[in-house]
């Protein structure tokens, strides 16, 4: 078994119009910039995919990565906890113009909804958001004298994930706080596509240090020297930039 694919274009080939796509990362840490840019390249060449629902903690920053995906007009709806950033103009303008939908989810609830989706738990109860605007319309139940809000699982057609090391069977490790939502999203998508700084043969990662077991991963592509959103933004980068 070998889950590696030849290039980024092949890695994102399965994403179709209207799909729900989870994108890993918290701000720039763990954001799979090259996979996102490959998806934008495909859209610019073919007009597809479009009408995407994107699940990420944020709404992008500057004009690269997720912000560039939104700026390209490929995103219909965003599910996130914190759509503000140092340079949030891309999302903000579209949102205030009513051209993109937003489902705002508390960060821990977002993480748990994704985890639940991957773990086969259709709903769960959390104290988070009880009595607030974000709990409106959601069932409430009392357990041991305390009120809790029912939240539903989140699943996706595809997850785009950034890892540090992958083996050919899809076992993954991450780097520092670039882990964040990535392992959860691997579990919650029908197809998980991983860009890894290093791809090694099976056996190249000690089983003791595997964070995401390969069962949750379908495609792996090596991106040896990945770009960092923060570095790109400090250089005022714009994707795809001027041809």
């Amino acid at each position, binding site marked *: 078994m070998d889950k590696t694919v030849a290039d980024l274009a092949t890695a994102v080939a399965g994403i179709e119009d209207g799909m729900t796509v989870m994108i890993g990362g918290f701000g720039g840490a763990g954001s799979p910039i090259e996979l996102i840019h490959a998806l934008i390249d495909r859209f610019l060449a073919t007009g597809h995919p479009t009408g995407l629902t994107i699940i990420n903690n944020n709404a992008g920053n500057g004009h690269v990565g997720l912000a560039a995906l939104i700026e390209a007009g490929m995103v219909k709806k965003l599910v996130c906890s914190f759509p503000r950033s140092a340079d949030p103009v891309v999302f903000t303008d579209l949102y205030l113009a009513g051209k993109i939908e937003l489902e705002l989810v508390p*960060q*821990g609830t977002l993480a748990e909804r994704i985890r639940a989706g991957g773990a086969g738990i259709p709903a769960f109860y959390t104290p*988070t958001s*009880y009595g*607030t605007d*974000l709990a409106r319309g959601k069932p409430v139940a009392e357990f041991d004298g305390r009120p809790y809000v029912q939240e539903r699982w989140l699943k996706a057609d595809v997850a785009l994930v950034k890892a540090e090391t992958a083996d050919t069977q899809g076992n993954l490790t991450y780097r520092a706080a670039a882990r964040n939502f990535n392992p959860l999203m691997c579990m919650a998508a029908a197809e998980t596509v991983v860009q890894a700084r290093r791809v090694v043969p099976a056996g190249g990662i000690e089983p003791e240090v595997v964070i995401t077991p390969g069962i949750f991963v379908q495609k792996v592509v090596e991106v040896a020297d990945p770009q960092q959103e923060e570095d790109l933004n400090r250089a005022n980068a714009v994707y795809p930039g001027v041809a």
Partner: protein
Amino acid sequence: MAAKLTNNQIAWRAAQDIHDGAYVNLGIGFPEKVAQYQPPGREAIFHTENGILNFGEAPPSGEEDWDLINAGKRAVTLKPGSAFFHHADSFAMVRGGHLDVAILGAYEVAENGDLANWSTGPKGVPAVGGAMDLVHGAKRVAVITDHVTKDGKPKLLQRCSLPLTGVGCVTRVYTSLAVIDIEGGRFVLREKLAVLSLDELQAVTGAELHVASPVADLIVPEL
């Protein structure tokens, strides 16, 4: 009423109540200052929602590692004994009651413990982050804030008027004028600046201040 604590002094006062070995989450912005004022001999372990326990100060400019950031997306460093974890584990620490203290900023705090700190109303782009999780997770939820708004209106109220972050969640408020506990749906005054009379403090507070025991002077070093 000229005298009031600076933000650094409010943060210093809040830091004095954090015990050695406490696991602590500090909100983005002003609350992050609390980390600078840990009393000598005490070491708190700081948690950040995006998956680090026991992170330290910012690195020197130019030495940032952008995979090593805090919830405010600022570069941080690691201390000996730090750990990385994914977001579901991070919020298990929060929601599961494993954090000893969360210290947050506030737009408004009510005498029933309600907190409003995420939205100033329907204008603009709403953003909540981890605040709604934190207020229901930590064993102790404290607020640090100026006592009044920029235009002098009380921030401590009978009921919040802005969208709530959490219901009945705050137990102590450190303000620029006083330290106030929330007990049984009431503000209970513990400490106030010595230059301020109770009446003067009450006049800038939007709900009744109760006095259950002798009120101590709020004494903070020059910072």
